[in-house]
């Protein structure tokens, strides 16, 4: 239970401490540290000072008492009580620390004292500090309504002439201690104020760049990619600001890229539509129109031979048109891909490709028999292989291409490798956007299905395109 309460308390503390601003935290640390340091110093100094001052005062009191005892010896022996009284009065008048002085004869009779005339000699004082015989002195602190008084007893003439008693106040000690304490406390306050000022400047230096970063990220969140963080210093926050700037530049570039590709995609789509429209209109439409004219002609043809040859022409026209339409449809989206899957579609595409470009393409499939993978992945893989093969035909000047599909439980790996002239991948990616559009298109497609695309090539080395797509435990 205790533990629970403890943890609750800590949680509460963090709630409060975590809730305040960085500035308050730092100020709190500085102020707390300074005050704690000041207070402990005051306590330490007071303690040490007290020890030293008390010892000093007592030593002084003992010396004073011994001196007075020596001087009063003769006066006691000749029984000069007035002289004794004067000696004591003189001493007390010059030393405000002395509370009282009195001399007791060896018979225990008070010979002279500084309590004034009359019966005011405090009761019990005489017995309060009995001096053992032979002792050089005896010190006895007395608790009185006036505060602590150190009573010092010193023998006169080794005790044969009585005892001198001296009451010593601690006011001097206390005054000194108070003075020192006040000074130390004042110093603490001044130092606290100073460090608070310094801390304020420092926190400003720390907080300002952080505020700047926050403002910047907010701007970036609003898709304002011109936002840059000011780097104030070369410290960790400076490094953070630098990292932020790099990130924003990267983002800006990606955004720019994205916009560019989006436009290219739209353009490409329009271009494709234009091509299809032209094909439909110019080729298919024309063919159907001439078919119509041809049919009309047939109506007027009587001669069976002419009829036959015209029919033959029309059949041919229909076949041609059919082929064109089929090819167009296949190029747009092979229905094999939807109906029979990736491998069948690729086989079909590769057969066409071989005939069209005269390039030997070998395909090897491992682990994909009887297994359909998600349609989005099939489409992506199909298009990427198509693009890779098209690129190879356009640029690689190759004779042989191998297409490899390897599926494991979690991964589909597709490798398209040609033995052509190769190219400098880095340079091409850096060079004009037009040339690398195809490469980026493939990469984008790969990323859309969570895959990665790696291109390995060097001039004269052929080109290998590696596509890896994770398969959800299908």
């Amino acid at each position, binding site marked *: 239970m205790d533990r629970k309460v403890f943890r609750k308390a800590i949680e509460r503390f963090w709630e409060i401490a975590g809730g305040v601003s960085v500035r308050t935290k730092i100020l709190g640390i500085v102020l707390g540290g300074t005050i704690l340091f000041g207070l402990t110093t005051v306590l330490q100094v007071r303690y040490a000072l007290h020890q030293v001052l008390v010892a000093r005062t007592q030593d002084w009191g003992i010396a004073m008492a011994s001196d007075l005892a020596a001087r009063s010896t003769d006066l006691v022996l000749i029984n000069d009580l007035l002289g004794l009284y004067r000696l004591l009065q003189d001493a007390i008048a010059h030393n405000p620390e002395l509370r009282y002085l009195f001399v007791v004869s060896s018979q225990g009779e008070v010979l002279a004292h500084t309590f004034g005339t009359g019966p005011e000699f405090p009761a019990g004082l005489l017995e309060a500090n009995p001096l053992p015989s032979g002792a050089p002195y005896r010190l006895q602190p007395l608790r009185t309504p006036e505060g602590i008084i150190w009573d010092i007893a010193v023998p006169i003439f080794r005790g044969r002439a009585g005892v001198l008693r001296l009451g010593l106040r601690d006011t001097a000690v206390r005054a000194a201690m108070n003075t020192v304490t006040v000074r130390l406390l004042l110093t603490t306050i001044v130092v606290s104020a100073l460090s608070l000022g310094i801390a304020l400047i420092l926190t400003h230096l720390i907080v300002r760049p952080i505020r700047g970063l926050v403002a910047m990220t907010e701007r970036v969140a609003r898709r304002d990619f011109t936002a840059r963080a000011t780097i104030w210093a070369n410290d960790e926050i400076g490094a953070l600001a630098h990292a932020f700037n790099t990130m924003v530049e990267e983002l800006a570039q990606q955004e720019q890229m994205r916009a560019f590709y989006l436009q290219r995609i739209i353009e490409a789509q329009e271009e494709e539509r234009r091509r299809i429209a032209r094909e439909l209109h110019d080729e298919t439409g024309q063919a159907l129109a001439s078919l119509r004219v041809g049919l009309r002609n047939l109506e007027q043809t009587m001669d069976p031979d002419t009829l036959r040859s015209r029919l033959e022409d029309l059949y041919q026209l229909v076949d041609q048109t059919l082929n064109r339409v089929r090819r167009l449809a296949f190029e747009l989206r092979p229905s094999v891909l939807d109906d029979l899957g990736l491998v069948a579609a690729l086989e079909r595409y590769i057969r066409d490709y071989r005939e069209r470009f005269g390039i030997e393409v070998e395909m090897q499939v491992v682990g994909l028999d009887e297994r359909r993978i998600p349609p989005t992945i099939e489409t992506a893989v199909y298009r990427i292989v198509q693009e890779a093969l098209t690129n190879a035909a356009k640029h690689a000047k190759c004779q042989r291409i191998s297409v*490899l599909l390897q599926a494991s439980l979690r991964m589909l790996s597709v490798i398209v490798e040609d033995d052509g002239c190769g190219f400098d991948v880095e340079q091409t990616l850096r060079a004009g956007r037009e040339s690398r559009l195809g490469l980026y298109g493939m990469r984008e497609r790969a990323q859309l299905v969570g895959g990665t695309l790696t291109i390995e090539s060097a001039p004269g080395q052929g080109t290998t395109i590696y596509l890896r797509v994770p398969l959800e435990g299908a």
Partner: protein
Amino acid sequence: MIRVLIADDHAVFRAGLRLLLSAQPDIAVVGEAGDGWQTLKQAEALQPDVILLDLTMPGMPGLQTLALLRQQVPQARVLILTMHEDEAYLRQALAEGAAGYIIKRATDEELVAAIRAVARGEIYIHPAMTRALLEDLIPAPKIPETPEPWENLSEREQQVLRLVAVGHTNQEIADRLGLSVKTVETYRARGMEKLGLRTRAQLVRYMIQKGLLKE
């Protein structure tokens, strides 16, 4: 009399077919259907001898319609009549139990002959499509005996080729074996040369045949 059901989603095409087939003395068109479900219903109701089935109709995929027809009206012979000249469709259709496969650009005579053949219990495949099937009969060119056996390759060459075959990039192989990419390429080229292989696909096929590709 051969009783025929025509299943195609184009009415004009169906009409043309009906006209053509009605001219044959031994063929009678008993019904028409425009999609998969209709085909199934009509087939069950009419119990035709031959069903002319288009593979691409709206709704149910053609191959699925075929499979269902084989279940529900097993005695009816299904002749696929389609635009698809893909061998993959042909294979699938035959696997699903089609009695014949003819393409839409076939001549009238070919179509009538196909219906008669299928009705007699034969299998009809349009000549334009037979090549694909015949290719299956011709044994695939065996990987030529390699000039040198696998064992003659050096340890490194074997390592590199194995990694190449399972689809690692040259860079990955270089990293894994602590070699430079150039060195990897050299090992790979030398190993392939020794085995007399030219492409990655050939290498994979070789490794599978030799049982070397076990993970």
